Protein backbone atom coordinates (compact mmCIF):
# COMPACT_ATOMS: atom_id res chain seq x y z
CA UNK A 1 0.00 0.00 0.00
CA UNK A 2 1.22 3.50 -0.85
CA UNK A 3 2.37 5.15 2.40
CA UNK A 4 2.00 8.65 0.97
CA UNK A 5 -1.71 8.11 0.37
CA UNK A 6 -2.15 7.01 3.98
CA UNK A 7 -0.59 10.20 5.30
CA UNK A 8 -2.20 12.56 2.79
CA UNK A 9 -5.23 13.46 4.88
CA UNK A 10 -3.03 14.18 7.88
CA UNK A 11 -0.77 16.68 6.16
CA UNK A 12 -2.70 19.73 7.32
CA UNK A 13 -2.68 18.87 11.06
CA UNK A 14 0.98 17.84 10.81
CA UNK A 15 2.02 21.19 9.30
CA UNK A 16 -0.13 23.16 11.71
CA UNK A 17 1.21 21.29 14.73
CA UNK A 18 4.80 21.93 13.60
CA UNK A 19 4.05 25.63 13.21
CA UNK A 20 2.48 25.72 16.66
CA UNK A 21 5.58 24.20 18.20
CA UNK A 22 8.15 26.15 16.19
CA UNK A 23 6.33 29.49 15.94
CA UNK A 24 7.44 30.15 12.36
CA UNK A 25 8.93 27.96 9.64
CA UNK A 26 9.72 28.02 5.94
CA UNK A 27 8.77 25.40 3.36
CA UNK A 28 12.05 23.52 3.12
CA UNK A 29 12.40 23.53 6.91
CA UNK A 30 8.98 21.88 7.28
CA UNK A 31 9.89 19.05 4.88
CA UNK A 32 13.15 18.41 6.72
CA UNK A 33 11.57 18.58 10.17
CA UNK A 34 8.94 16.00 9.23
CA UNK A 35 11.62 13.74 7.77
CA UNK A 36 13.70 14.10 10.94
CA UNK A 37 10.82 13.56 13.39
CA UNK A 38 9.53 10.49 11.57
CA UNK A 39 13.07 9.14 10.94
CA UNK A 40 12.48 9.28 7.21
CA UNK A 41 9.22 7.32 7.36
CA UNK A 42 7.17 10.28 6.16
CA UNK A 43 8.48 12.55 3.43
CA UNK A 44 6.32 15.49 2.44
CA UNK A 45 6.56 16.25 -1.25
CA UNK A 46 6.95 19.85 -2.36
CA UNK A 47 4.02 19.40 -4.75
CA UNK A 48 1.77 18.68 -1.77
CA UNK A 49 3.28 21.04 0.79
CA UNK A 50 3.28 24.37 -1.06
CA UNK A 51 -0.33 24.18 -2.35
CA UNK A 52 -1.37 23.37 1.23
CA UNK A 53 0.58 26.31 2.67
CA UNK A 54 -0.88 28.66 0.05
CA UNK A 55 -4.40 27.38 0.68
CA UNK A 56 -4.08 27.83 4.44
CA UNK A 57 -2.63 31.30 3.93
CA UNK A 58 -5.50 32.28 1.63
CA UNK A 59 -7.95 30.87 4.18
CA UNK A 60 -6.54 33.09 6.95
CA UNK A 61 -5.14 30.11 8.91
CA UNK A 62 -1.53 31.04 8.21
CA UNK A 63 0.24 34.33 7.70
CA UNK A 64 3.59 34.88 6.07
CA UNK A 65 6.52 37.25 6.21
CA UNK A 66 9.48 37.66 3.88
CA UNK A 67 12.98 37.93 5.27
CA UNK A 68 16.21 38.65 3.51
CA UNK A 69 18.81 35.95 4.29
CA UNK A 70 21.94 37.04 2.49
CA UNK A 71 21.54 36.69 -1.24
CA UNK A 72 17.96 35.40 -1.26
CA UNK A 73 14.58 35.99 0.34
CA UNK A 74 12.89 33.49 2.59
CA UNK A 75 9.17 33.21 3.21
CA UNK A 76 8.25 32.25 6.77
CA UNK A 77 4.82 30.95 7.75
CA UNK A 78 3.18 31.21 11.15
CA UNK A 79 -0.26 30.51 12.57
CA UNK A 80 -2.78 33.33 12.75
CA UNK A 81 -5.13 33.70 15.72
CA UNK A 82 -7.73 31.69 13.80
CA UNK A 83 -5.05 29.11 12.97
CA UNK A 84 -4.11 28.71 16.63
CA UNK A 85 -7.73 27.96 17.45
CA UNK A 86 -8.04 25.54 14.56
CA UNK A 87 -4.91 23.50 15.31
CA UNK A 88 -6.27 21.85 18.47
CA UNK A 89 -9.50 20.98 16.71
CA UNK A 90 -7.52 19.33 13.87
CA UNK A 91 -5.40 17.31 16.28
CA UNK A 92 -8.48 16.10 18.14
CA UNK A 93 -9.94 14.94 14.84
CA UNK A 94 -6.77 13.01 14.01
CA UNK A 95 -6.80 11.37 17.46
CA UNK A 96 -10.44 10.33 17.02
CA UNK A 97 -9.61 8.97 13.57
CA UNK A 98 -6.71 6.91 14.97
CA UNK A 99 -8.90 5.52 17.76
CA UNK A 100 -11.58 4.56 15.24
CA UNK A 101 -9.01 2.92 13.01
CA UNK A 102 -7.67 1.01 16.00
CA UNK A 103 -11.14 -0.38 16.68
CA UNK A 104 -11.08 -1.99 13.24
CA UNK A 105 -7.47 -3.13 13.25
CA UNK A 106 -7.52 -4.48 16.80
CA UNK A 107 -11.13 -5.47 17.49
CA UNK A 108 -11.79 -6.35 21.13
CA UNK A 109 -12.76 -10.00 21.59
CA UNK A 110 -16.48 -10.40 22.18
Amino acid at each position, binding site marked *: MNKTNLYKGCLEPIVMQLLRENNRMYGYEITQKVKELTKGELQITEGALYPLLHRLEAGGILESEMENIGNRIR*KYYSLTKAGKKQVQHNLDEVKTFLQTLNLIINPKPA
Partner: protein
Amino acid sequence: MLSDKQIQELYKFCSKHYVSYYDVQTELVDHLASSVEVEMQLNGDLDFDKALEKVYLSFGINGFSTIVREKSESLTKENRMRMFGILASFFKWPTIILTGTYLFTEVLLYKNYGKSIVAYFVIISSLLTTVPQLVNILLTRQKPKSPLLVNDFGQVYLSNSLAGIWIQYLGFIFNLVCVYNWLHVDGPNFSIVWSIVATILLVIENAVLMTFQRNQNCVQRKYPAAF
Protein backbone atom coordinates in the same frame (compact mmCIF):
# COMPACT_ATOMS: atom_id res chain seq x y z
CA MET B 1 25.98 28.92 0.64
CA LEU B 2 25.23 29.43 -3.05
CA SER B 3 26.73 32.39 -4.85
CA ASP B 4 24.71 35.35 -6.16
CA LYS B 5 25.21 34.04 -9.69
CA GLN B 6 23.83 30.63 -8.74
CA ILE B 7 20.80 32.25 -7.08
CA GLN B 8 20.17 34.18 -10.30
CA GLU B 9 20.43 30.86 -12.15
CA LEU B 10 17.68 29.52 -9.91
CA TYR B 11 15.44 32.51 -10.74
CA LYS B 12 16.05 31.84 -14.44
CA PHE B 13 15.33 28.14 -13.86
CA CYS B 14 11.96 29.01 -12.29
CA SER B 15 11.08 31.36 -15.14
CA LYS B 16 12.03 28.66 -17.64
CA HIS B 17 9.58 26.34 -15.89
CA TYR B 18 6.76 28.90 -16.16
CA VAL B 19 6.98 30.31 -12.64
CA SER B 20 7.18 33.99 -13.47
CA TYR B 21 5.43 35.36 -10.39
CA TYR B 22 7.54 37.03 -7.76
CA ASP B 23 5.83 35.57 -4.69
CA VAL B 24 5.89 31.94 -5.87
CA GLN B 25 9.30 32.31 -7.48
CA THR B 26 10.90 33.70 -4.31
CA GLU B 27 9.66 30.79 -2.25
CA LEU B 28 10.73 28.17 -4.78
CA VAL B 29 14.16 29.73 -5.28
CA ASP B 30 14.77 29.52 -1.54
CA HIS B 31 13.56 25.91 -1.47
CA LEU B 32 15.74 24.92 -4.42
CA ALA B 33 18.74 26.76 -2.98
CA SER B 34 18.39 25.06 0.42
CA SER B 35 18.03 21.62 -1.19
CA VAL B 36 20.88 22.15 -3.65
CA GLU B 37 23.18 23.32 -0.83
CA VAL B 38 22.46 20.15 1.16
CA GLU B 39 22.91 17.91 -1.92
CA MET B 40 26.26 19.52 -2.73
CA GLN B 41 27.36 19.24 0.88
CA LEU B 42 26.46 15.55 1.09
CA ASN B 43 28.02 14.72 -2.24
CA GLY B 44 31.15 16.74 -2.84
CA ASP B 45 31.45 15.54 -6.45
CA LEU B 46 28.04 16.87 -7.42
CA ASP B 47 28.16 20.18 -9.29
CA PHE B 48 25.44 22.85 -9.10
CA ASP B 49 23.63 21.82 -12.31
CA LYS B 50 23.50 18.13 -11.43
CA ALA B 51 22.34 18.93 -7.89
CA LEU B 52 19.59 21.17 -9.25
CA GLU B 53 18.47 18.47 -11.66
CA LYS B 54 18.27 15.98 -8.81
CA VAL B 55 16.32 18.39 -6.58
CA TYR B 56 13.87 19.29 -9.34
CA LEU B 57 13.04 15.61 -9.79
CA SER B 58 11.70 15.58 -6.22
CA PHE B 59 8.93 17.96 -7.35
CA GLY B 60 7.39 15.06 -9.25
CA ILE B 61 6.21 14.66 -12.81
CA ASN B 62 4.26 17.94 -12.84
CA GLY B 63 7.22 20.00 -11.66
CA PHE B 64 6.12 23.46 -10.49
CA SER B 65 2.86 23.55 -12.45
CA THR B 66 0.68 22.12 -9.64
CA ILE B 67 2.07 24.68 -7.19
CA VAL B 68 1.40 27.64 -9.50
CA ARG B 69 -2.08 26.42 -10.46
CA GLU B 70 -3.13 25.78 -6.87
CA LYS B 71 -1.71 29.12 -5.72
CA SER B 72 -3.81 30.83 -8.36
CA GLU B 73 -6.92 28.92 -7.26
CA SER B 74 -6.32 29.75 -3.59
CA LEU B 75 -6.01 33.44 -4.40
CA THR B 76 -9.16 33.39 -6.52
CA LYS B 77 -11.03 31.94 -3.57
CA GLU B 78 -9.48 34.43 -1.14
CA ASN B 79 -10.42 37.36 -3.36
CA ARG B 80 -13.94 36.11 -3.92
CA MET B 81 -14.44 35.77 -0.17
CA ARG B 82 -12.97 39.25 0.39
CA MET B 83 -15.24 40.79 -2.22
CA PHE B 84 -18.37 39.02 -0.96
CA GLY B 85 -17.53 40.21 2.55
CA ILE B 86 -17.35 43.82 1.36
CA LEU B 87 -20.48 43.41 -0.77
CA ALA B 88 -22.41 41.97 2.18
CA SER B 89 -21.34 44.90 4.37
CA PHE B 90 -23.42 47.25 2.17
CA PHE B 91 -26.51 45.36 3.30
CA LYS B 92 -25.54 45.15 6.96
CA TRP B 93 -25.80 47.66 9.78
CA PRO B 94 -24.62 50.46 9.72
CA THR B 95 -23.72 50.71 5.98
CA ILE B 96 -27.20 49.61 4.99
CA ILE B 97 -28.38 53.09 6.07
CA LEU B 98 -26.31 54.57 3.22
CA THR B 99 -27.51 52.00 0.69
CA GLY B 100 -31.12 52.49 1.78
CA THR B 101 -30.82 56.30 1.75
CA TYR B 102 -29.39 56.18 -1.78
CA LEU B 103 -32.27 54.05 -3.06
CA PHE B 104 -34.85 56.12 -1.17
CA THR B 105 -33.41 59.35 -2.67
CA GLU B 106 -33.74 57.89 -6.16
CA VAL B 107 -37.38 56.97 -5.54
CA LEU B 108 -38.14 60.40 -4.02
CA LEU B 109 -36.51 62.19 -6.97
CA TYR B 110 -38.44 60.01 -9.39
CA LYS B 111 -41.77 60.76 -7.70
CA ASN B 112 -41.16 64.51 -7.34
CA TYR B 113 -39.06 65.46 -10.36
CA GLY B 114 -39.37 62.64 -12.89
CA LYS B 115 -36.97 60.11 -14.26
CA SER B 116 -34.56 62.50 -16.02
CA ILE B 117 -33.43 63.87 -12.64
CA VAL B 118 -32.95 60.32 -11.33
CA ALA B 119 -30.77 59.56 -14.36
CA TYR B 120 -28.53 62.58 -13.66
CA PHE B 121 -28.43 61.71 -9.96
CA VAL B 122 -27.31 58.14 -10.76
CA ILE B 123 -24.55 59.29 -13.11
CA ILE B 124 -23.22 62.04 -10.80
CA SER B 125 -23.38 59.97 -7.60
CA SER B 126 -21.75 56.98 -9.32
CA LEU B 127 -18.85 59.07 -10.54
CA LEU B 128 -18.53 60.87 -7.19
CA THR B 129 -18.20 57.60 -5.27
CA THR B 130 -16.07 55.60 -7.70
CA VAL B 131 -13.67 58.10 -9.31
CA PRO B 132 -11.98 59.09 -5.99
CA GLN B 133 -11.43 55.39 -5.26
CA LEU B 134 -9.94 54.83 -8.68
CA VAL B 135 -7.67 57.85 -8.26
CA ASN B 136 -6.62 56.56 -4.83
CA ILE B 137 -5.71 53.17 -6.34
CA LEU B 138 -3.56 54.89 -8.97
CA LEU B 139 -1.90 57.23 -6.46
CA THR B 140 -1.08 54.60 -3.84
CA ARG B 141 0.11 52.03 -6.35
CA GLN B 142 3.76 51.05 -6.45
CA LYS B 143 4.96 49.33 -9.58
CA PRO B 144 6.52 45.93 -8.84
CA LYS B 145 9.81 44.89 -10.43
CA SER B 146 8.29 41.62 -11.63
CA PRO B 147 4.69 40.39 -11.82
CA LEU B 148 3.01 39.43 -8.59
CA LEU B 149 0.47 36.67 -8.50
CA VAL B 150 -2.64 38.52 -7.38
CA ASN B 151 -5.87 36.96 -8.44
CA ASP B 152 -8.66 39.34 -8.97
CA PHE B 153 -12.18 39.08 -10.24
CA GLY B 154 -11.69 35.38 -10.93
CA GLN B 155 -8.74 35.92 -13.22
CA VAL B 156 -5.03 36.19 -12.74
CA TYR B 157 -4.24 39.84 -12.62
CA LEU B 158 -0.61 40.82 -12.97
CA SER B 159 -0.10 43.63 -10.53
CA ASN B 160 2.56 45.29 -12.68
CA SER B 161 -0.21 46.11 -15.13
CA LEU B 162 -3.38 48.04 -14.45
CA ALA B 163 -5.25 46.57 -17.42
CA GLY B 164 -7.58 44.57 -15.19
CA ILE B 165 -8.96 47.52 -13.27
CA TRP B 166 -9.36 49.69 -16.38
CA ILE B 167 -11.24 47.00 -18.32
CA GLN B 168 -13.43 46.40 -15.30
CA TYR B 169 -14.13 50.13 -14.79
CA LEU B 170 -14.97 50.64 -18.48
CA GLY B 171 -17.47 47.79 -18.12
CA PHE B 172 -19.05 49.66 -15.20
CA ILE B 173 -19.29 52.90 -17.22
CA PHE B 174 -20.92 50.96 -20.07
CA ASN B 175 -23.50 49.48 -17.68
CA LEU B 176 -24.09 52.91 -16.18
CA VAL B 177 -24.80 54.38 -19.62
CA CYS B 178 -27.28 51.55 -20.27
CA VAL B 179 -29.07 52.27 -16.97
CA TYR B 180 -29.02 56.01 -17.75
CA ASN B 181 -30.66 55.33 -21.11
CA TRP B 182 -33.38 53.27 -19.51
CA LEU B 183 -34.00 55.96 -16.94
CA HIS B 184 -33.69 58.94 -19.24
CA VAL B 185 -34.85 58.01 -22.70
CA ASP B 186 -38.50 57.14 -23.25
CA GLY B 187 -38.91 53.47 -22.76
CA PRO B 188 -40.68 51.02 -20.54
CA ASN B 189 -41.94 52.83 -17.49
CA PHE B 190 -39.94 50.81 -14.93
CA SER B 191 -37.90 53.61 -13.47
CA ILE B 192 -38.14 52.38 -9.90
CA VAL B 193 -36.89 48.97 -10.98
CA TRP B 194 -34.05 50.67 -12.84
CA SER B 195 -33.29 52.75 -9.74
CA ILE B 196 -32.79 49.49 -7.87
CA VAL B 197 -30.61 48.18 -10.70
CA ALA B 198 -28.54 51.39 -10.56
CA THR B 199 -28.13 51.03 -6.78
CA ILE B 200 -26.99 47.41 -7.08
CA LEU B 201 -24.59 48.35 -9.86
CA LEU B 202 -23.07 51.09 -7.75
CA VAL B 203 -22.75 48.83 -4.70
CA ILE B 204 -21.02 46.13 -6.79
CA GLU B 205 -18.60 48.62 -8.37
CA ASN B 206 -17.72 50.08 -4.99
CA ALA B 207 -17.10 46.57 -3.63
CA VAL B 208 -14.89 45.74 -6.63
CA LEU B 209 -12.81 48.89 -6.19
CA MET B 210 -12.51 48.37 -2.44
CA THR B 211 -11.37 44.76 -3.02
CA PHE B 212 -8.83 45.98 -5.53
CA GLN B 213 -7.50 48.60 -3.11
CA ARG B 214 -7.24 46.06 -0.29
CA ASN B 215 -5.41 43.58 -2.53
CA GLN B 216 -3.02 46.30 -3.59
CA ASN B 217 -2.35 47.34 0.01
CA CYS B 218 -1.97 43.71 1.02
CA VAL B 219 0.72 42.81 -1.58
CA GLN B 220 2.58 46.07 -1.01
CA ARG B 221 2.69 45.37 2.73
CA LYS B 222 3.51 41.66 2.38
CA TYR B 223 6.16 41.83 -0.34
CA PRO B 224 8.00 45.14 0.14
CA ALA B 225 11.11 43.78 -1.60
CA ALA B 226 9.09 43.26 -4.79
CA PHE B 227 8.65 47.00 -5.35
